[in-house]
Every structure is written in C-alpha cells, then in structure tokens.
C-alpha cells in the first residue's frame, strides 16, 4: 500500500441526481513519485477523477486512498488534507490578480497555519503590515520563484506577466507547501506550443528533483506523451491507453 500514493477501486461519481454518470467504476493505482497523464476527450470524466483525488469532491461509491488518507471515510471538507498533501495547477492558472507573484505563491501557506502575530513587522506601508507566516515560507516562495525562472518578477502582479509566466507562478504555488502529490488540470491548455514545452519541461524537472507524484490531466496526446505512464478515460471508465502510446 505504501508504494502506491493513489489507490482507487470502482469509483463512481454522478451528477444531476444520478442522471449524469461522470465516473463509472474507475479502478487504478499510481505509484509514489510517478508522473502519470490522465488522458481523454472532453467530458470523459478525467477532471472529475482529478477533483476526487485532490479531495475537492467526494465519490458516490467505491474506495479511494490518497497519500495514506481514506478519502471516502474522512469527515469534513478535507482542507487540511489539500493543504498538506496536494498541490493544484489549473488550466487558467487561477492567480489572484491583486497580489504579486510572491504573494500568490504564499497564499497556500496562509491557509495551512494559524495567522501570524499581527503587526509584527509594520514594514512597507500600507502592505504588507505583518510578517506573514515567517521568513521560512517567504524564503521558500522566493526560492521556488527563482527555480521557475521568475526570481526577478516576484513583485509583479499577474496582469503584468505573460501566460507562461503566470503558469510558472501557479507551479511555484502548487509546490510551496511541500506536497506529496501535484495535480495539474490541463496546465498547458491555454499556452502556445513553445511555452507549453517550457512548462512541461519544468514540471518534469521539478517532479524528478523533488520526488513528488505528478498527475496531469490532458486531452492532448502530445502532452500525455511526456508522462511516464498514461491512463486513458473514456465515458467515465479506464480504457486501453491510446493517447500517449
């Protein structure tokens, strides 16, 4: 069990009071440190599967173990699980436009720990007024921004960054809490092919460097090919992979 970071058995997820069957008995296993692409056409159920693995939603039935947590039986909304174990990268980067790149990377750390002592360091007026979660988080966020090649743009806000740069900020944000697993939902869907190559290369490098498990959802066979293994979903079921191989 410890060798597998994701174990799903006969997962079922329906919407609209059961009228739409998004997942129809999905069974799969993903090893720790593996780079897996979940491939399939639009509406096949791949994003639903990713949401279940990331504890953004719960399956109707089946069994789902992620990073040692039984997600079927865990009570509550599992925010603590997402904060500690999972990093998300979305297709539309989903950065907060009013915050700088550095602050966007720090956002998950503000949710993971209790608030910092207020007004500890009333520095640069008017913002930020406090120290945040301490220099360690700050240093880690800066280090990640350096690593994704945006060290010099830490204080730029998303509207001042290109699409590729925004997605690299999102990659840094996904890694700031040292997650065991990174879930990327069409992370290059909105990028041109050159930028797409850069982002995929970066993701693969970071996955190897940090030993995290990377699960990437895509409908694009070229993107799926960059993964160690491809799981294909069609009509809510795992089928023989045609996508990447």
């Amino acid at each position, binding site marked *: 069990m410890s060798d597998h970071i994701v174990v799903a058995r006969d997962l079922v997820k329906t919407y609209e009071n059961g009228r739409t069957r998004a997942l129809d008995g999905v069974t799969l296993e993903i090893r720790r440190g593996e780079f897996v692409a979940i491939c399939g056409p639009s509406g096949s159920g791949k994003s639903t599967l990713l949401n279940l693995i990331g504890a953004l939603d719960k399956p109707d039935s089946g069994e789902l173990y992620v990073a040692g947590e039984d997600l079927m039986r865990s009570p509550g909304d599992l925010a603590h699980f997402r904060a500690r174990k999972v990093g998300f990268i979305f297709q539309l980067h989903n950065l907060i436009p009013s915050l700088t790149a550095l602050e966007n990377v720090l956002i998950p750390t*503000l949710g993971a720990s209790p608030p910092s002592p207020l007004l500890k360091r009333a520095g640069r007026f008017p913002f*930020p*007024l406090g120290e945040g979660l301490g220099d360690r988080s700050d240093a880690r966020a800066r280090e990640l921004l350096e690593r994704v090649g945006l060290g010099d743009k830490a204080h730029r806000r998303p509207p001042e960054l290109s699409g590729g740069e925004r997605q690299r900020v999102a990659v840094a944000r996904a890694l700031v809490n040292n997650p065991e697993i990174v879930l990327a939902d069409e992370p290059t869907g909105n990028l041109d092919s050159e930028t797409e190559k850069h982002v995929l290369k970066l993701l693969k490098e970071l996955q190897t460097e940090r030993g995290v498990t990377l699960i990437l959802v895509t409908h694009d066979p070229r993107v799926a090919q960059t993964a160690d293994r491809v799981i294909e979903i069609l009509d809510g079921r795992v089928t023989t992979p045609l996508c990447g191989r």
Partner: protein
Amino acid sequence: MSFLGLILKNLWRHRIRSLLAITGISLGIATIIALGAIADGMEQNLIATLRSGKADFSIGQAHAPMIVLSSVPEARLYEIARWPEVGQAVGALVAFASFPGNPYFLTMGIEPEAFELGGVTLLAGRPFSKNAEDEVLLGKIAANTLALKPGDSVEIDLKKFRVVGIYETGNLLEDGGALLPLRALQGLKNRPSELTVILVRVNEGFSVEAVMARVEREYEGSLIPLRSAEEFNRNYQSLRLVRAGSWLVSLLALVIGGIGVMNTMIMSVFERTREIGILRAVGWRRVRVLALIMGESLALGALAAFVGTFLGWSGARAVTLLPQVRGLISPVYAPDLFAQALIIALGVGLVGGLYPAYRASHISPQEALRYE
C-alpha cells in the same frame, strides 16, 4: 505577506466601495460621539450647577421628570434650616428665560447670602439687593456674549432689568447665565414659594451621610438628597432620556451601517467567488475563509470608528463655536464614549460581515473554480 495584510489589501482593491461603507458607518459614529459629548457636557454642567459651591449636598424633588423641573416647596427650606446639624441651607430656583437673541437662557434665583454657598465670586459691580425686583447679575460669559456691563439694562422675559454686577462660578452654564433675586425670579416665572433645589452645608461634627439619611427618612417619596453625579442620574429621567436617545442613535447606526457593510461584503464575496474557490482548493479551511471576510468587515468597522470619532469630535467643536449655544454647551469627551463608539463600529462590522462570511465559507471549491 500576513493575514492582516491580505485583509487590508482586499479592502484597498475596492477602495471606492470600502470608502463608501466607511463613510456610512463613520457618519453614525460621528453622530454618537458628537451627541454623546454634548449630552455629557450639558449633564455635567447642569449637575454642577445644582450642587455647586461649598454645599455638602443638594436636595431635589424625588422622581422629577427633568432636573430643571424639580419642584421643592420653599417651606421645606425653612424646616431643614432649623435642624441643629445643618449649618446653612439656601434655596435656588433654576429656570430658562428668554434673553435678547437667546430663548433658553439659564437663570438662577438665589438670595445674596447664598453666594458663598453657591460659589459665586463677584468680578465687577455689586450684589443685588435681597428684595430688588429689577436687578440682575450676569455671568462672565453671558456679559461677554451680550456685551453688557454694570449699569446697562437687559430685557428678561419681556421685563426690563438693570445689570448691577458680573460674577463667575467657574461653571460654564452658570457663567453663561444670570442670577436674579429669588423673589424676582419666582415672580417672573409665576412660581411663588417654589424652589428647584436646596443647597445644604452640614455643621462640623455632624455626618453628611446622617443628614442625607434624615432627609430621605423625613421626606420619603417627595424629596431626595443628591451628592454625586450618579445620584442625579439615577433620580432624573431627563438624563436617562438623553442616554436612551444616544443609545437609540447607536442602534440606528448599527442597523444602517450593518446593512451597508453587508451589502459591500456580499458584493465583494460574489465578485470573488472564483478566488475564494482557489483559496479553498489550495487548502484554506472554511474557518479561515470566514476569518478573512469577517476580518475585512471588522477592519471596515475599525477604520470607520477612527474616521467617525474624528468627525464627531470636530462636529461637536464646531457646534460650540455657534454664538447661539456658546456658554451653554461644553462637550465632554469621556473615555467610555469613545469605547462605546468603537464597540458599535466593530459591532456594525461584525453584524454586517456575518452572513457574507458564512456564504463565502460555504462556497464549494469545485463549483467556484468553474465559476466565470
């Protein structure tokens, strides 16, 4: 970046909307501060007026609706003055009279021998004669405002009086008013043999408390001995009404400000649905999202408290500069007034933020991320 920094940054993002919400609450807070300070000032002056000078305590009518409407039969004065433990007892009638340009001029009818007990110091001229019917002493502030000096004439309630002197007591209301012979004011106001208060000085060797207790015992239900401001407050409904009015304004401010804040915060939560979804997706717990929105709402209240306090303070100061009320109003800025304003402003933030914060904390991350 800190949690507090994020809260302030979110408010700064929509600064016009935040400013409007702050303006709404701060106007309520300003009203509370200005009204409260003016009411406190009037109350303190009035109480000081009725227990001024060297008297050990005052006696007023029990349960009178207003302190200036206290009615004590003059006969009680003579009874109490005969008590062996009482060194001196003098009566005073307090009434508002119309003066040129001021229909609410404070006048006190008093015997000349009561000046010492009443703490009256003559600055110019002479005291009025005991039975004079047309002599008046003006307070220092009143003489200045009306530009009158001894020897001049003044019309009080359509009757002509001669100014014979100028006095000072150190009390704003008294110094902004006038002293008349007791009989003259009783006649002018058609209140013969009637007093507002009796000022009592107790002989050495006797306990003030014991004399007060005797007043209470012998005139139970009709007269009441008063010494502290609290005793005045307890006995006179008018002061309680001022307080109740102030609290009513506070309540209105709470409701109106609360609706304003709620509107601002609901708009903000609605616009940030996707953003809140991101926060939830990256591991923010419901309670943290709740704290963020409540924090923004409370910050609006706190900022409004500061702005409103400044506006209220300035407003009350501006009112004192009006010639019509100069000498009548001297705002008192008690710490508990500021505490009340701060609590109300934070209460507005709290009440206004509760529902939006609840809504925000219950946004489903998965659905919010699909939100356009």
